[in-house]
């Protein structure tokens, strides 16, 4: 019954989503509109691509878009002097698929539907310049730019079950919940010769894993730091705590998150980059995060050239 309600709720949301989204593609040619910077300004709106149902980044409450990426999208649109429009993204198997479906080509079932800019795109030079077996640049159709946040991994645990999480070794003996098909899932089922494998429980998302922790099915949950912070800020999770352990063996401990546009729309990219740069340096980005009760780390990109004082300002420590 509960799942039925969820489906009904999703159906209701779907209607609202349709009301918000714009499809400005060319129906006759079945291709997306070529929305350059000037056309965006003329049209009076910016279509911002964000993942659907992905708290605390982008999600809906009573049909209203919410989350840190939504707030950032609104702020960008405001600074450009245009209206914010949401473009919901259903995640595919990997980032490359999402970029193809939403930034440069369009999904083959919805070829006219593209975002002007996509948020929550990892900013990583190695990724951006990856080549395929024939030497072609895999991501040559997009520009990755404008890192606005640094993300990392985090564990929350139930202090009634665990004294502390000094290392992940405790999960050889205690159950831990993860979102299925994520790095925490792979990490915990394979690290240290698979010694934690038997204790891993899989859930559809981090919120479901927290629900399982409240029921006592698991003693801890691993996810992205913002996801964990968001759950810990909820009153029903007040008894849980954030762990301070490291994640030895994970190749990517931290990564920058930025934006993506189609490579032919660089002028839009420069405009957005200037806006983001100001939001990060003035500490406004930190305030956005803090308003959602989320910790903020300045992207590694800025750490390479900002002095300590500037970083402290950006992170709200000044």
């Amino acid at each position, binding site marked *: 019954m509960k799942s039925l309600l969820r489906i009904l709720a999703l159906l209701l949301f779907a209607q609202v989503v*349709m009301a918000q989204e714009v499809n400005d593609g060319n129906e006759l040619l079945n291709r997306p509109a070529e929305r350059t910077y000037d056309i965006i300004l003329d049209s009076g709106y910016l279509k911002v691509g964000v993942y659907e149902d992905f708290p605390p980044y982008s999600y809906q409450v009573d049909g209203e878009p919410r989350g840190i990426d939504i707030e950032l999208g609104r702020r960008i649109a405001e600074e450009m002097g245009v209206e914010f429009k949401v473009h919901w993204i259903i995640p595919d198997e*990997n980032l490359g698929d999402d970029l193809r479906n939403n930034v440069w080509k369009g999904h*083959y*079932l919805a070829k006219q539907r593209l975002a002007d800019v996509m948020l929550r795109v990892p900013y990583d030079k190695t990724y951006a310049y990856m080549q395929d*077996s024939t030497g072609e640049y895999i991501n040559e159709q997009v520009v990755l730019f404008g890192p606005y946040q640094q993300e990392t991994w985090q564990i929350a645990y139930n202090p009634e079950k665990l004294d502390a999480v000094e290392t992940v070794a405790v999960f050889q003996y205690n159950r831990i919940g993860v979102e*299925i098909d994520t*790095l925490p899932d792979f990490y915990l089922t394979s690290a240290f010769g698979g010694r934690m494998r038997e*204790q891993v429980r899989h859930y559809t998302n981090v919120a479901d894993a927290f629900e399982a922790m409240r029921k006592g099915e698991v003693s801890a949950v691993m996810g992205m730091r913002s996801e964990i912070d968001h759950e810990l800020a909820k009153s029903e999770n007040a008894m849980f705590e954030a762990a301070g352990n490291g994640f030895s063996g994970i*190749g990517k401990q931290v990564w920058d998150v930025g934006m993506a546009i189609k490579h032919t729309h660089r002028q839009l990219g420069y405009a957005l980059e200037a806006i983001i740069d100001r939001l990060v340096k003035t500490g406004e980005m930190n305030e956005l995060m803090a308003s959602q009760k989320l910790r903020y780390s300045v992207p590694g990109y800025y750490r390479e050239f900002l002095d300590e004082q500037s970083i402290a300002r950006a992170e709200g420590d000044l």
Partner: protein
Amino acid sequence: MRTNKFGIRIAASALAMAVSYGAHAVTDEDIINDHKTPEDIVSYGMGTQGQRYSILEDLNTNNVQYLQPAWAFSFGSEKMRGQESQPLIKDGVMYVTASYSRIYAVDARTGEEIWQYDARLPDGIMPCCDVVNRGAAIYGDKVIFGTLDAKLVALNKDTGKPMWIKKVADYQAGYAITAAPMVIKGKVITGVSGGEFGIVGKVEAYDANTGDLVWTRPTVEGHMGYVYKDGKKIENGISGGKAGVTWPGEMWKNGGAATWLGGTYDPDTDSLFFGTGNPAPWNSHLRPGDNLFSSSRLAIDPDDGSIKWHFQTTPNDGWDYDGVNELISFNYEENGKTVKAAATADRNGFFYVLNRENGDFIRGFPFVDKITWAEGLDPKTGRPIYTEGGRPGNPADMEGGKGEMVLAQPAFLGGKNWMPMAFSQQTGLFYVPSNEWSMDIWNEPVSYKKGAAFLGAGFTIKPANDDYIGVLRAMDPKTGEEVWRYENTAPLWGGVMTTAGGLVFTGTPEGHLKAFDAKTGEELYRFNTGSGVVGTPITWTMDGEQYVSVASGWGGAVPLWGGEVAKVVKDFNQGGMVWTFKLPKDRVASN
């Protein structure tokens, strides 16, 4: 033409309506005897055993050059992609599905449309496995097919009006249906397609008249099966007895094993034969164990969904070798005895002959030129003998680097993919549409998913030879001998049919419908349909003439993959037609 609220377009053709109103209902007997009644085709497989063998001999090796187009029919709209359907024929009407969950009733004599039904797909649907549809089932006054949003739709076969629509699984959870359902003993039997992770495969039976669920059978160890009686859901045993025997931890809960290609049915043993897809997650190092019933063939009781036996082709699969390829029932004589056998050509490159009464392994042999991942099969059990170092590495083991690259042959698209082979009762040979390709697999040094760092594997498909990828092979199931082969530049992706006229039909991505001599492999006929053929041909007789039909429209999985193979196929144009040919009466005598 008009569109009503169900999204059906009805073309009012007085002649066509007259044809279908005179039609008879399709019975269980009609379906079981389909292979003996060449005036109609009422099952996917031209018979429930899936042999795709027609007893018709009017069209034969001597006169096939006179086969001529009778009509062609366009599926219309801009949805020109991946026509993998096998048409059905009943009382002078063709029922044919098209990509994007569409179905058409067409006058089989003239090619005029009688009705069309377009399933209304939800906005934002992301089917895992392209937009193809492989065909329909027909029963009573209904024609039934599956949709990309994982529903079964039963339409009145004369009007195209929906009679019932049932949700088989949740498309938002990653499920879809692309295979043709079948009707056995009044029940519609279907499997499900699914994405890479988080789903559990199942086979289900629905009452053909009402659409009510009759039984459900999960294809992963540890999940409970159910039968439904008088509105009650009754437990009918856990698949494999209990959870966690061949899976670590609770990974069986999301084990994959999607039944995405449908099944066959053998009346002799009263068994449904379904194949299952690869286990999840993709990285085999995370799930030590056999991971039943992934990459397997299952014999299932059609009355209650119980599993009678299983045979696993790739235990602990690490190469994406789905075990879904069709298991075809056939008999052969050995030492004066009739052996009730069944055969399948697996994605993993081995051809298996099984005892269809109990699933015992009889023999197995490679049907492709080279297999790297296994040295062979255990002669007693048929279990693969793995090659040392042939398994892709564990992405979780790597530290920054690209990891060791492993070359595996066949590629994950398989020595043979979904496209059905055929068995000739005349020659005793299987005609196997196969491909010679390999893949490099490595651990991605950097990978992201949904805004987060991720561990991914990279892979690329490479042709094994410079001048061809596809090979149509005639294989002797008793000896493993390749009797003849036909090499094709592009990968073969269409089904095969064979006839008592000594012919083997298949299509090529280059666009040709081709006919070969079943004994020698000599190419006897070709016709350019204008787009790649990835459908499965049929033949039937009507008004004393023999007809052949095939859907044309390039697409399916091959063009979705890049690398070296893309160079071979990138210039093929998509399409959406069904072509029908016939041998004129006066040519029959010419043999």
